[in-house]
């Protein structure tokens, strides 16, 4: 069966959930081959996991020489893997790095590129959600090797083992690809809550919190949710940028999104409109967010959220 390359998204060997979603999608197109950029120490454990979630092959590309550089070396290595394997497609996670590697790879291989897919069907037809979620687009790459970046939460990981054959791949990386250097990197601090883009439930706060995120965090913890924020809350310095949901923040598509003290500007909607169930608490009944909701409470979040949190905790016993 034709191989489908899946670029593994991981932090020091800890594979992030969207990779397993990609493997599940890759199975529809062919035989999933995971591409793992990392050191020998991390690769053995990673390979086991990738196999468990359905990878038939795992290409390990030693990244000792390239991990200090931005994007370009990975694109070169992938080009060499595409030449070697003639895959049915290359799948990457839609994030800054995944998209940029994809963009470069598309030029290098003369291939079509589709970004931010939310589904990939047999035959390579992708679904995208565009214009702040107002349109659904079905598209297909027609030239070269389809290169597709897929948003997190677009598929369900399948824990059915693949053949899991490990192969070391020695890539040659040019000096030209090593011109943008990662001088320093500070890993994001763990919040103890689910990852924003991966969470099944997201509870967000906006300007209406007045800077007090305790009610947001309380409800989030009662529901086992991730915490998000509007740009107004981020710009005010109440939350770090990594919590921002929207056009210039994260796109989330959870089972449940709870927007509190958020008006529902188009740029915010762009990041959450495809959530399955939407709930809002806002003291202004005219707030545009109410146009989107399955359930809304007109009221003061500082009263509603703590009371709801208490009721939820009581129900959970």
């Amino acid at each position, binding site marked *: 069966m034709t191989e489908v390359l899946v670029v593994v998204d991981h932090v020091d060997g800890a594979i992030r959930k969207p990779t397993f979603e990609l493997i599940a999608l890759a199975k529809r197109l062919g035989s999933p081959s995971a591409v793992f950029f990392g050191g020998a120490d991390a690769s053995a454990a990673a390979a086991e996991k990738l196999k468990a979630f359905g990878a038939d092959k795992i290409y390990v590309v030693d990244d000792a020489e390239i991990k200090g550089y931005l994007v370009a070396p990975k694109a070169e290595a992938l080009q060499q893997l595409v030449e070697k394997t003639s895959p049915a497609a290359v799948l990457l996670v839609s994030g800054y790095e995944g998209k940029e590697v994809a963009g470069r790879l598309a*030029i290098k291989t003369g291939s079509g590129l589709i970004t931010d897919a939310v589904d990939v069907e047999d035959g390579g037809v992708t679904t995208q959600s565009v214009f702040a979620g*107002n349109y659904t687009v079905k598209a297909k790459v027609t030239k070269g090797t389809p290169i597709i970046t897929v948003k997190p939460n677009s598929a369900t990981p399948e824990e059915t083992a693949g053949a899991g054959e490990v192969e070391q791949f020695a890539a040659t990386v040019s000096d030209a690809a090593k011109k943008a250097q990662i001088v320093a990197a500070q890993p994001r601090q763990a919040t103890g809550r689910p990852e924003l883009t991966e969470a099944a439930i997201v509870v967000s706060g906006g300007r209406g919190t007045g800077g007090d995120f305790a009610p947001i965090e309380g409800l989030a913890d009662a529901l086992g949710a991730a915490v998000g924020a509007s740009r107004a809350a981020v710009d005010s310095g109440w939350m770090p940028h990594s919590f921002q949901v929207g056009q210039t923040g994260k796109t989330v598509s959870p089972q449940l999104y709870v927007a509190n003290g958020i008006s529902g500007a188009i740029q915010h909607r762009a990041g959450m409109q495809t959530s399955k169930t939407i709930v809002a608490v806002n003291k202004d009944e005219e707030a545009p967010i109410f146009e989107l909701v399955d359930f809304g409470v*007109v009221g003061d979040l500082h009263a509603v959220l703590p*009371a709801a949190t208490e009721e939820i905790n009581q129900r959970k016993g």
Partner: protein
Amino acid sequence: MNIIVCVKYVPDATADRQFESDNTVDRVGVDGLLSELDEYAVEQALQLKEKAGDDTTVTALCVGPDKAVDAVRKALQMGADKGIHVTDEAIAGSDYIATSLVLAKAIEKAGSEQAVDLVMCGMASTDASGSVIPAMLAERLDLPQVTFASVIETQGDQIRVKRDSDTATEVIGATFPLVLSVTDQTGEARYPSFKGIMAAKKKPMETWSLSDIGVDAGEVGLSVAWSEVEDTTARPPRTAGEIVTDEEGSGATALTGFLASKKFI
């Protein structure tokens, strides 16, 4: 320094954006404007010019239909020195691959007299939101890419930027020339002043066709696109949800009841 800022003309996000019958984005029927996210790139270019001194030129470059000249004009009003508008019927419906080719060729031509030091872009266009054109330009022009910068520092021909990647905050360093894309975290973009608006009318503005930049019409446009849109559907409007007004705690109880009924508790 010679700085080129790539600015895109996009349908207004607050208007009803739509598709044409051939599934391309309607760029004519819907009011358009300079992509908000590219204003941040223009702003940073102007700040670099102000820091570097007078001999720096900032050129705004846009690929798009006739009306797209408005995006270039806005950049000139903000303070860019020159404008280039690449327009040609054959470009309509171009995908990322073709658009990046046209931009790269235009940048090469713009740099034929004085070498380009910096190609600047927004972090994403507000319509396609691919965030891929800057990386593609770096690939095509064989330049380093320094992308998604939220803080920019330069010293001589060195640049250092802060980049909030998916899992870490990074500092990226490189040497000019390079491609730089900036986020909306770089700081508010200036509004054109009355003086700026008047001055913009006299600034040099060039209009180039595909043949001016040496691109064959057969390499771009909808008919040769590397990907094909099969279908576009407007999302069905969300069915109106239930809205309750909180009165002395009733809101919390109703909310909890809803969440329980959907099995979130």
